[in-house]
């Protein structure tokens, strides 16, 4: 049967199997300085998981300190360093590397039917900047950790401890890594899709990575410039931000948020992508409103550049500037709402399986919606004048970053684990992990809204003096939050145990345990070194359950159940 395969836009990809590079044979070439996007992805995941655990433990130090209104567990200076590194570590060393470098590298090339990313050497450099940057960040404890929060507003960050300069350097480095990854993914997605994979046949995770790559490429340089200026001010006394010498502290805020607001979308868009893959698979239904969900990612990314000053309503901008930023921020609610409603409608009429990945995806919709709703409050100038800088903001960011990005990452871990490791995880432990996490997450962060609105500012090592009338309620609520957060931390141990158990004694995974339809599931678990011996042709988008798979020319030997090592399958170059 002859089926016309549309030519891929802009690319000439040989559907035959000529250019397969031989697999590396040394340990270092295979696992350390590998050029394979899959290995680099796993490296990102391992490093990200390590930094996730460190940053998470720092959060527990914060919670122990706040169990008593007068603090006292650690000194003020240590406390200030601890929460600064908790946030910096979670944002720059955990979430961004996991959702772009980790899952982006592993899954995206497989999904578009590519053998690797466009620039493997650049990818290698991107990754190898990341662990040293992480070590520099957490190493700043040794010389006096930065203390002004992850936003490091000058002038206080200019007076900050010596570690603040190390913080600048670490974030500068990870910024370079992000920019390069963004560029790499952008070119990969634009140029290396399998024949027939038009834009509207791309899996939604690839759409999300495309929008994220755009943000990473364009926004991160603003942060790099701001960091370089802060570093120069601290080390060489160049007065960028010192108002006494003609600088402006507000300048930093503009530069910082011009990056850091899009960074919020860098962290959440890939999670949207995870959810958009997992829901159809476990509901056995096409995603509802594919185009709406795909294009709204791009809309969110573009609008994301126009709203940064909503973080600065109290900072002293000209009042007339507040209005456009307020209204543009509110407009973002519309494309975000489209996604949420689309996901909800995807569930309707499904055959929903309560797999841990699906449970985390459902939990994601619920908690992320709450985080999105509080985002509208913060976007309204008059309400923000009360909310800004309080624990209500802490609650909001944890609902979108933990409830959003980290729930997304957990879902993705359960979803792609068999593909990556070739082993199954325990579903029972996964379900336990979900319920522990979901309940303790809400118990931890929901009461923080109340705390903030009643008068508890963020970034305080003590709260005994802030609202003397409410101190009893504040103490009880803070203790409740702290105990919930210990359960939340413990719930992660269930995941770690599940991972370890699966690696040691897990059942071998078939190529496609969930009957999913995207390309990565059509080859063995884990995939062969070359991903696809023959690049398949794509006939349709991957969400048509009940139809035959829309791929032509998949080589059956890519799907062998015994894990083919490259030597088992001599490439044409060897043959």
């Amino acid at each position: 049967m002859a089926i016309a395969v549309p030519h891929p836009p802009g690319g000439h990809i040989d559907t035959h199997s000529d250019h397969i590079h031989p697999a590396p044979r040394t340990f270092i070439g295979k696992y350390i300085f590998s050029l394979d996007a899959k290995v680099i992805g796993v490296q990102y995941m391992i490093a990200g998981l390590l930094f996730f655990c460190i940053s998470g433990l720092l959060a527990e130090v914060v919670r122990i300190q706040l169990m008593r209104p007068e603090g006292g567990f650690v000194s003020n200076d240590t406390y200030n360093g601890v929460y600064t590194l908790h946030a910096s570590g979670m944002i720059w060393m955990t979430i961004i590397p996991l959702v772009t470098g980790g899952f982006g590298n592993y899954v995206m090339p497989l999904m578009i039917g590519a053998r690797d990313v466009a620039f493997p050497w650049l990818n290698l450099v991107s990754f190898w900047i990341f662990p040293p940057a992480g070590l520099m960040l957490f190493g700043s404890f040794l010389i006096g950790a930065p203390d002004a929060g992850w936003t490091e507003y000058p002038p206080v960050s200019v007076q900050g401890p010596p570690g603040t300069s190390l913080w600048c350097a670490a974030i500068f480095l990870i910024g370079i890594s992000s920019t390069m990854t963004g560029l790499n993914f952008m070119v990969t997605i634009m140029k290396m899709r399998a024949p027939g994979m038009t834009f509207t046949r791309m899996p939604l995770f690839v759409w999300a990575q495309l929008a994220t790559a755009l943000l990473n490429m364009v926004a991160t340089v603003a942060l790099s410039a701001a960091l370089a200026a802060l570093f120069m001010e601290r080390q060489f006394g160049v007065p960028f931000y010192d108002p006494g010498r003609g600088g402006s502290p507000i300048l930093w805020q503009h530069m910082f948020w011009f990056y850091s607001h899009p960074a919020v979308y860098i962290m959440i868009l890939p999670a949207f992508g995870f959810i958009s893959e997992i829901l159809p698979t476990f509901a056995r239904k096409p995603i509802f409103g594919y185009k709406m969900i795909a294009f709204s990612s791009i809309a969110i990314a573009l609008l994301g550049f126009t709203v940064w000053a909503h973080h600065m309503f109290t900072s002293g901008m000209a009042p007339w500037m507040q209005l456009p930023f307020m209204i543009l921020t509110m407009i973002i609610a519309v494309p975000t709402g489209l996604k949420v409603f689309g996901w909800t409608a995807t569930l309707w009429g499904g055959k929903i399986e309560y797999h841990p990945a699906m449970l985390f995806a459902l939990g994601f919709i619920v908690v992320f919606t709450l985080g999105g709703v509080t985002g509208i409050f913060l976007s309204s100038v008059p309400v923000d004048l009360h909310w800004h800088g309080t624990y209500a903001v802490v609650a909001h960011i944890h609902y979108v970053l933990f409830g959003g990005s980290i729930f997304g990452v957990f879902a993705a871990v359960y979803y792609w684990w068999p593909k990556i490791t070739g082993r199954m995880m325990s579903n029972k432990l996964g379900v336990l992990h979900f319920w522990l996490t979901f309940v303790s997450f809400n118990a931890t962060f929901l009461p923080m809204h109340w705390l903030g609105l009643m008068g508890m500012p963020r970034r305080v090592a003590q709260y005994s003096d802030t609202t003397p009338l409410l101190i009893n309620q504040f103490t009880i609520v803070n203790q409740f939050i702290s105990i919930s957060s210990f359960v939340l931390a413990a719930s992660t141990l269930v995941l770690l145990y599940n991972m370890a158990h699966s690696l040691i004694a897990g059942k071998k995974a078939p190529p496609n345990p969930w009957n999913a339809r995207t390309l990565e599931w059509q080859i063995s678990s884990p995939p062969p070194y070359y991903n696809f011996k023959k690049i398949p042709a794509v006939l349709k988008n991957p969400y048509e359950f009940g139809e035959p798979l829309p791929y032509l020319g998949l080589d059956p030997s890519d799907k062998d159940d015994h894990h083919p090592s490259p030597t088992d399958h001599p490439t044409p170059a060897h043959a």
Partner: protein
Amino acid sequence: MAQVAAPRSQGLGPGFWPVTIVMTVVNIILGIYIATFDINKYLPEAAAPAGDIDLLFKFMAAIGNAIFLYVTVYVVYFAIVWRRRPSDAPDAIGIQIHDAPTLELWWTIIPSVLVIIIAIFSVKIWMNLQNASGDVLTMEAIGHQFKFEFRYPNLKSSVYDEMHVPVDTPVTVQVTSSDVIHSFWVPEVRLKYDMVPGLVQSVRFTPNRIGKYRVICTEFCGTNHANMFATMYIDSPQDFNRWIAAQAKLQASSGGAVALQGGTAAAGQTLFANKCSSCHSVGPFEQKIVGPGLGKLLSDTTHPNLVTGEKPNAVDISHVLIKGYQGPDDSQGKNGPSLGAMPNRDANGLSNSDIANLVAYLTSLSQSK
């Protein structure tokens, strides 16, 4: 081949309309509850914009709550009703629909309309904030690591960590900072503005509830950020005036009055060489070392005032010597930036007679040239 669509007669699935109707009723009830909720009982509304801001907050809470509950309940309800049952074939699939343009249009239009309504409401409250009356009492609040300084028009010296405002009087607090960014937040007023060095912002409100409240710093400002707060008293006008009078008396008596008549310029010249000349020249204002030159203190037409904004008379010069100087507060730039800070009398080790001698010397400099 897997089974395809459910029969049309199945409609929206079991229980869809009952769930929707119950949800709508619950949301209306919760909306009414939120709208009539008395926030004042839990966190007092102690000044004029607080009521406005709470009204907007409640409006948004009612809408936000409805959206959140609809999404949550539909997710849970769909997940239960449309779950995979043990009786389902292994290759059973869901209803293969891809979209419903009318539905999608509605859930674009409705949120857009809600966003527009929220935006209009927000802009209206925002306009009220911009046009709020103030200025009957204009005072200054200056953030320092880690204390609040308050200046009143009728008081010569600043008051620290305690501010008083009269009830039912429009107040403007001009906030700024001497070092790093702080923030001025009174939860009961619902207003918060950052105290940014080199920038003055106006906080306008009309207190309407007598009581004692906290001013809290909400922008991280250093090691002891958590201990930076002040107390705001909203007083009856009588109490307020009494407090101002008491402060004025306290300040007049504190440290003993300096008898300026008895100073001698010659003794002042020796003192100046020992204590002042490392930072001040006796040339014109522009001849700065750290601080400005003091040779034409009383006769400089381009700088008619002292750096504190006070008149260059003997009494006000002595005030600078007593209090020291906290850094540039002349935000209009008349005296130029970068004036440095000057320690107070205790740090400089100046007795009353030292101050009198210095004033006599500085006065004589201006007169002799």
